[in-house]
Each structure stands twice: as C-alpha cells, then as structure tokens.
C-alpha cells in the first residue's frame, strides 16, 4: 500500500528532478555556469546528508568534509594507482568514511560527548586529518591530479553536464534516503534523541546505537560523493580537508532548518549560488564576503526563525491548508 504522504513526496521529487535536469539546457550548456550549478548541487547532497546527523539526530557535527575527503581521496587513489574505476572506488570510499565514523562515533557516544563538546571534537577532526594528510607518507604538500583521461569509466568528462547529471542522481538518492529515514522508526527515534536524550532512553531507545547509525549513514553518503567533489575541484591534497568548507556545510544545514529536507536543499542551492556569484563578481575586491553573509544570516535565523528556511515552507503549507478548508 502506498501512503498519501509518499505519493505527495514522490510527485514533488519528480517535479524537482525534471526541473533540475533542465538546468543545463536553460544555461545553454555554458560550461562555467554548469560547473557552478554542479557545485551547488553537490553541496545540496552534503547538506541533505548532514541533515541526518545534524537535523534529525541533533548532533552538531562539524566534520562533514572529513568524511567527504576520506571517501574521495580513497576512490581517487584507487583509480590513480590501481586503475580501479570510481564506480567501485566510490563504494570503497564510502566504506572508508563509515569506518572512520565508527571509530569516531563509538567512543564519542559511549562516553556521552555531546553539544559543544561534540562540535569541538568533530571540528578538530578536520584539522587533525588535514595535518595527517600533509605528512610525506600520505599526500605530502603537493597537489594530486586525477588521471588525464576521460569517459564514464573514470567519471571524468570534457563537458561538465555529464558530471552534473551524475551528481543530480546522487542528490535524488540522498533525498530519498532522507525521506525514508524521516518516516521510519529510526527517524522518530533520532528526533526523540535530539529533543531529549534521557527521556528517549527511558522510552527504550538505545541512544548510542541510533546515533552511531545516523553518523555512519551520513558519513557513508559523504564518502560516496567525495570522489565527485574531487573531480569538480580538479585536484586533491591535504587542502581537501578544509575547515571553512566543513563549517559551511553545517551552517547551510542550520540556516535551512534542522530536520527539514526541503529546507536543507533550498538553503544549500541558494547560499552556494550566491557564494559563487559573489566570488565571481566582487571576489577580487572583497574576498570572503560570503562568509560575512553567512554570519549575518545565522544571526537572523537565530533571532527570528530558529526553524530556518523550513519555517517558510511550513507557513506556505499552512496557508494552502487553510485556503482548502475555507474554500
């Protein structure tokens, strides 16, 4: 039996997919704009995946780029040195990220590290990985390049639209996973944990297990997408573990509204597009202006609408609901 809720989500998702699929056509296959669009799209993947740990489970995880980096670099190295196609490498990368998540999450949740301390711990994870990757035994100080080959085997293309569609597919899959979680027992349990851990535990929820499940799911998606991120970036190095990028993903998630898939998606697309636009127009005169804008937006969201962009959707939904009842 297909529920009405599912049908509604399916319709919205179908419209969204078609709309996003048309973007390269609307942009007239201008390669630069498609690159920007693909970048926005990949950040939407990150933010929607982050919503699982940050939004549903309520853990302020500031290490998204750690999982992106590990997964991406593993897949890239496998391709470079062993000729293994990223179609396999991305899954291995996802596995590597999940292993890292388990290694971080198990002791962290075991000893009840949460809130600010969890945020600090995860933020430092990015810095630690950055330093480790910098060691000569690992990536050293050089930039690493993907093999100078193109084709579906490598997921490297001369045109950006193919990559755009691959990322779109990953995004749709991520949204579907998110909605599945949201409407499942796991989703209810994660939200209960976010609201009150002690009360959740007294209702029979194995808090540690569910937090770890959320962390590993999110890390897996991040790790899987990592290779595509590296393809977009063109190179990889210890710089891939970039703290500001990591924070940006969490900030986008917060501005979007914790626990809202639509909010996370909109926030990522909107903010990333604005960021890229500002960078291309006045980036040379006022570099880093977008960070200031993020800061201001965070304050605005904090003061007026802690529910973030999601509040706008709820408001619209209510309006439509009332109109129907009234009409």
């Amino acid at each position, binding site marked *: 039996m297909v*529920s009405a809720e599912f049908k509604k989500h399916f319709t919205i998702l179908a419209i969204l997919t078609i709309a996003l699929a048309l973007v390269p056509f609307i942009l007239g296959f201008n390669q630069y704009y498609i690159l920007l669009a693909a970048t926005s799209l990949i950040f939407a993947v990150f933010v929607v995946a982050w919503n699982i740990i940050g939004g549903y489970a309520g853990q302020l995880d500031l290490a998204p780029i750690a999982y992106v980096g590990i997964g991406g670099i593993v897949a890239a190295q496998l391709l470079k040195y062993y000729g293994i196609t990223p179609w396999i490498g991305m899954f291995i990368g996802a596995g590597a990220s999940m292993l890292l998540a388990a290694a971080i999450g198990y002791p962290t949740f075991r000893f009840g590290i949460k809130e600010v301390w969890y945020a600090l711990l995860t933020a430092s994870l990015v810095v630690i990985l950055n330093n480790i990757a910098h060691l000569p035994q690992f990536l050293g100080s050089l930039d690493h390049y993907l093999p100078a080959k193109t084709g579906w085997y490598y997921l490297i293309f001369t045109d950006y639209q193919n990559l755009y569609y691959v990322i779109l597919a990953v995004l749709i899959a991520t949204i579907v996973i998110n909605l599945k979680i949201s*409407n*499942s*027992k796991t989703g*209810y*349990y994660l*939200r*209960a944990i*976010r*609201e*009150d851990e*002690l*009360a*959740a*535990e*007294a*209702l*029979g*929820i*194995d*808090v540690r297990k569910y937090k770890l499940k959320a962390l590993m799911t999110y890390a897996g998606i991040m790790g899987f997408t990592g290779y595509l991120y590296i393809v977009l970036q063109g190179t990889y190095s210890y710089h891939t573990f970039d703290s500001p990028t990591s924070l940006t993903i969490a900030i986008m998630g917060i501005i979007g509204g914790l*626990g809202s898939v639509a909010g996370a998606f909109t926030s990522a697309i909107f903010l990333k597009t604005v960021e890229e636009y500002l960078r291309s127009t006045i980036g040379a005169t006022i570099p880093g202006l977008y960070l200031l804008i993020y800061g201001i937006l965070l304050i605005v969201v904090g003061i007026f609408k802690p529910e973030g962009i999601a509040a706008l959707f709820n408001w619209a939904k209510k309006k439509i609901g009332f109109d129907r009842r009234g009409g």
Partner: protein
Amino acid sequence: MSDAILQVRNVVKRFGGIIAVNNISFDVREGEILGLIGPNGAGKTTLFNCITGIYTPEEGKVYFMGEDITGLPPHKIALKGIARTWQKTRPFKKMTVLEAVTVGVLLRTSNVDKAMREAEEILKFIGFPEEKINALGKDITLMDHKMVDLARAIATKPKLLLLDEVAAGLRPHEMDRLAGILRKINSEKRITMIVVEHVMRFVMGLSERIVVMHEGQKIAEGRPEEIANNPKVIEAYLGTKPV
C-alpha cells in the same frame, strides 16, 4: 513472595559523602498502586533512578518479575517493561503530541503507520484533548505535558509505571482529573504503579499502600490511614512535637 512484580533489596546509592538512598527494601505487588512519599531530599527520585537504570546502586539488588535488573541501562529496562514519567516534564518540543506518543509505541513495533494509530488510541484513552494532538510540544500547557508524558510512557506497554511527582504544579481540579486517569490506566491496562508524590491528598486517595522515606531510609510502610497516624512519619514531616 510470588505476587511481587518489583523487589527492591538493600539498595544503597551514595553521592560523595552523602548517602542518598540508604539500605532500602520493599516490594511492589502486581496490580497495585504504591505511594512513595517523603519530605524533600528523602531520596525518592534517586531511588527511582536506581530502579530505571539511570544510576547503578552501589549496593543491593533490584528484581523485576524475578529477574535481576540491577545496573542494566535505561533502554533495556524500558524494554523489560518498566516505564516512567519525570518530575520536571521532558517534552519533545519540536515534535507533535502524536509523534511523541508514537515514539513510545515504536518500542514494540517497527510499523510507523500502525504505531501512529495506536498512539492516537492511547491519547483518546487518557482523554487528551483531540484538537491538540497535532500541536507541537512547545505549544501546550503543563497539564497537557503531564498527559503526554504519561501517554508516552504507557505507549511502551509497561507492566510497571513509575510516576515521579506527576501532580506537582497542577491545580486541585486538574489533580482530581489526573488521579482518575491513573486509576483508569491501573484497572483497564493492568499496569502496576509506583507514585512518588508530595501532595498528600493526591497520594493518600490514590494508593493502596504507602512507603515513607526520610533521609534515604524507609521509616514506614502500610495502608494510607496507618501512615497518616504514624508518629515517625508525622515527625519526619513536621518535626518533633514540642513537649
């Protein structure tokens, strides 16, 4: 005793140099409502936390349906069939009332649609105002919170329910309503209860037996009218009679 659903045996819990619960033993009989009273700081909530696994007692044992549950984590104790409510309500503020109760039901099923329908029935059973079941946790009144807390707890299908100062902060007519709901849960759902309470009128009218704690120790146990006339209890509450 075969009809004891919960057996507390010589439980001791210390915090640094303070003995919060000192060598407490008592039984809870299947199907009864047991009152647990005592002045502030008597150790009632600490004892609750020892039973529900939030604290592990330093000494002593807790048996539930004949099984040693001492030191099990809270979620495992909930799974065994002990549920609780909180002195200070712990609402899921950004979830609706219905969703919060659904979380409780999901302990015994994984089917969300089924769980939601069951949650609706439970809310109806305890008489929660129907128009408010889709309200967010942050938008409802204290009495509503107490009822959601209660609904959430009985949604886990417990055999034993621990109520920590459930009447605190309520108006007299709200208390009477709550007492009625508790009696209905006790008789129709066959859930045994321990009621920790400060409000004498409430607990005296509700419980069949009462255990009195004072400074971590059990000072009396018996039927409400016996307790009300027990000199030790009067002394604990009011101090020594001037001679």
